[in-house]
């Protein structure tokens, strides 16, 4: 026992407090973040486990980089980025979604609410602490990331931008989990709802896009022309067969050929009206901030061949552009006209083939280089983040007006 005696009223070094403040403060947010991280600190066994895990990742990273060829490819980098986003969007919400109703059930929330900490302190502190854990996942993938980046043909600025966006997406997902935790009474419900929300954004948007395609489809009429083989004379059939086999159409008289016309209807989806559904997908947001790769000139540009992201960007762009004249032209098939072109001379026949090829390549390039628009997706994420945090802060304010159904204050 010591003889230390504190004065009954130690000076409290807090500023004068009025009303019922709720805004987060720097000191309070830091304190709550620290508490939450301290509570999750691993035991000695845990540290050993994480150490072994980290060593394994490092070793694997070194092994892969030694064994791989020098050829440029962006696929490993893209896979790592998707992995980081996926892991973050699973871990962040899993932690945050039990943070409020779990604490309340354990009886460790209300004592904190009795202190000088504001609802905002608790909300932001809990958000940041869950997010930091997801951030740690990113840090553990660094060896892979460095290796994958080295051969990806990306620039450092581009990688950093994508990483920042990934961390932001994880932050939003974590905030949504926290909001569910503030709304639902039981942890099981809030965790499920948090992952459901992520699922709706990642998979639901794609499914919805696919299912709404018929709703925005127009019916187009197309006429194809074929050679009517049944009505050709034997000589004509033989000549045409030979021409197809040899590529020499000089023996064929195109004007004498009998042609059948076939008209049919097909639907084209005006995906430019529903492309926004795809654009709010977090994976698409990541792809929309990653660098454009020109499929024709990537080698001169110092890039790797178009990888997953570039191909997805092309598909998304195609959806955003919608059906074009060129699409309609490429759909139409006129065998008789083709034969006529080819019969009229070799040069033109070559041109005819190239024209089609050129249109296709031009379209590919146009889609691949179509301007990126992450803004819709990022805008929605900002809205989700602000909305979720508003809900959390509101629900953490005391005195409580309403309680989560079937719960007690604690």
């Amino acid at each position, binding site marked *: 026992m010591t003889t230390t005696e504190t004065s*009954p009223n130690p*000076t409290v070094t807090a500023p004068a407090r009025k*009303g019922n403040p709720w805004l987060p403060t720097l000191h309070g947010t830091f304190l709550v973040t620290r508490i939450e991280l301290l509570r999750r600190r691993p035991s000695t066994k845990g540290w050993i486990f994480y150490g072994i895990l980290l060593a394994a990742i490092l070793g694997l990273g070194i092994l892969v980089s030694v064994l791989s060829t020098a050829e440029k490819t962006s696929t490993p980098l893209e896979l790592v980025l998707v992995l980081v986003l996926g892991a973050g969007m699973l871990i962040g919400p899993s932690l945050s979604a039990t943070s409020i109703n779990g604490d309340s059930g354990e009886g460790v929330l*209300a*004592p904190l609410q*009795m*202190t000088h900490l504001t609802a905002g302190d608790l909300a932001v502190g809990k958000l940041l602490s869950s997010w930091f854990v997801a951030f740690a996942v990113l840090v553990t993938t660094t060896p892979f990331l460095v290796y994958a980046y080295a051969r990806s043909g990306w620039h450092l600025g581009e990688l950093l931008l994508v990483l920042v966006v990934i961390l932001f997406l994880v932050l939003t997902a974590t905030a949504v989990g926290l909001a569910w935790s503030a709304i639902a009474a039981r942890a099981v419900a809030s965790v499920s709802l948090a992952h459901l929300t992520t699922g709706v954004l990642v998979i639901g948007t794609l499914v919805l896009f696919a299912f709404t395609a018929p709703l925005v489809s127009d019916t187009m009429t197309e006429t194809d022309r074929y050679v009517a083989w049944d009505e050709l004379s034997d000589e004509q059939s033989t000549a045409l067969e030979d021409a197809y086999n040899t590529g020499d159409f000089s023996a064929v008289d195109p004007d004498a050929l009998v042609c059948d016309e076939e008209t049919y209807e097909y639907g084209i989806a005006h995906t430019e009206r529903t492309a926004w559904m795809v654009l709010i997908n977090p994976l698409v947001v990541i792809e929309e901030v990653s660098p454009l790769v020109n499929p024709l000139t990537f080698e001169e540009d110092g890039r790797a061949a178009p990888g997953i992201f570039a191909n997805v960007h092309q598909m998304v762009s195609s959806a955003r552009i919608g059906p074009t004249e060129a699409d309609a032209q490429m759909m139409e098939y006129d065998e008789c006209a083709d034969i006529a072109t080819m019969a009229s001379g070799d040069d033109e026949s070559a041109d005819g083939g190239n024209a089609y090829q050129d249109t296709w390549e031009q379209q590919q390039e146009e889609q691949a280089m179509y301007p990126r628009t992450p803004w819709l997706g990022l805008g929605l994420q900002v809205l989700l983040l602000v909305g979720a945090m508003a809900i959390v802060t509101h629900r953490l304010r*005391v*005195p409580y007006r309403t309680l989560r159904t079937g719960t007690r204050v*604690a």
Partner: protein
Amino acid sequence: MTVQAQAPTGHALHAQGVRRAFGSVQAVVNASLTLTPGTVTALIGPNGCGKTTLMLMLAGLLRPDGGTVEVLGHDPVTAGAVARKGIGWMPDVLGMWDSLTCTETLATFGRAYGLSKADADARAFTMLEKVHLADLAAQPARVLSRGQKQRLSLARALMGDPSVLILDEPASGLDPRSRIELRDLVRALAAEGRAVLISSHVLSELDEMVDEAVFMSKGVTLGESAEAEVARARARWRVTALPGHDVHAALSEAARDWSPVEGADASVAVVHVADADDAADLLASLVASGMRISAFGPVGSALEQAYLSIEQERR
């Protein structure tokens, strides 16, 4: 209902006509109480009578549907921050951060109450000594027993140096020694000038701890009738003589207000006395009249007696 505009000065906490419903369940119907600095007030009532709900409203964690609460002159609803600042609340749930040590827990709360790091650490140390947990200071909370957690919870409520202490069932699950320590601690806290409100089921313990009692039943606090009941219960003494001695006759002869004890013979009786002096006089006269008295003292717990008789009335 007339609502007092201002609590009389000198009152640490004053509640008037407070009510609160959860959905269709009216948890607190009409509760009024006043806490005075330096006194310990007991909040007594059966399970589910609304004690915890009332305490939550007093602590500023739950918004009352009606009525007024004033903590040190502040309304916990409109001036929540400053009202809560004056209150130390110990919940009936034993929630602790499992992986933090006792010192860490308390120091963190000190920081949350706005203390500097050095002050928080120092106060954490003092509080651990105060609740006899100093030897477990470096242990994580998960290894603490129920009673130890309870004491840590009390220390936690004291980290903000509150003028008003609201303790929800602090004695439940404590061993006899811990209860005595708790009683001494609560008395010491009141002696420091704090107003203490304590709810408990262990009425015999409260008897020796509290200055005032507020009875609560079905969401209503019982006022003067209950106080009269406590006073009456405090004046009931039990007389036991050796077998064969007729205490009943002796008491009738002394013109005392007495009643027989069910299932006992004429050697046992319960008698009303005015005060301790009167009791001593009675004992002296009984002994003088030749009675061989083997036991003489107040009947059980006064609060328990009052509690039971009130409950009986309301059935």
